[in-house]
């Protein structure tokens, strides 16, 4: 998983608190993604970005915001955390090779909302 770094790796929040997850890459890839992983549901796409300054909604965007101010960083924010957002969050990156590029994943960030 070299090249994709997620911080923090663990976090416990109380309902209503806010936080930001940072994804940093050193591979100069255009595309970046945030997924959440829940038991039995695989990975679901929250938001993604196809380049600096651009973001788009994925499958489950509600309750999250993102920003891509710099090409190498993709931030995922929770403005008011809810217990339903307890999950493991994965950042992934991909080359801008239309359709065929595989994703490279970070190690994950485990978030618990009490």
């Amino acid at each position, binding site marked *: 998983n070299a090249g994709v770094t997620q911080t923090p790796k663990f976090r416990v929040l109380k309902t209503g608190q806010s936080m930001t997850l940072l994804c940093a890459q050193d591979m100069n890839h255009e595309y970046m993604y945030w997924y959440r992983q829940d038991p039995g549901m695989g990975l679901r796409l929250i938001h993604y970005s196809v380049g600096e300054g651009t973001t788009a909604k994925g499958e489950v965007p509600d309750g999250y915001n993102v920003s891509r101010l710099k090409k190498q960083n993709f931030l995922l924010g929770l403005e008011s955390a809810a217990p339903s957002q307890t999950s493991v969050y994965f950042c992934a990156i991909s080359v801008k090779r239309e359709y065929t590029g*595989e994703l490279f994943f970070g190690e994950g960030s485990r978030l618990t909302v009490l």
Partner: protein
Amino acid sequence: AQSVAQPEDQVNVAEGNPLTVKCTYSVSGNPYLFWYVQYPNRGLQFLLKYITGDNLVKGSYGFEAEFNKSQTSFHLKKPSALVSDSALYFCAVRDIQAAGNKLTFGGGTRVLVKP
């Protein structure tokens, strides 16, 4: 819309025996198909992909997968499983019409290889 189904939550196999992890997909156009593996407390690692060409795709760690268009399947196989293959396996699909290289993942199949 694109979707992936992995019908088995868990597969148990004895070391040295063949391993198969099933995957079926649904896309509106031509599919690009991927397999990933996840070890405990780690991110997903790419195993192999089918883009075009030969229906049998070979990947990392001795794994291979067979694309079957008529059955819309992309099953992962390994001729002789190792204990170290015990992990969570995900199938994923990308529709050629989907922007941004987005992948849709199946629910995952846990593989347990017993000595």
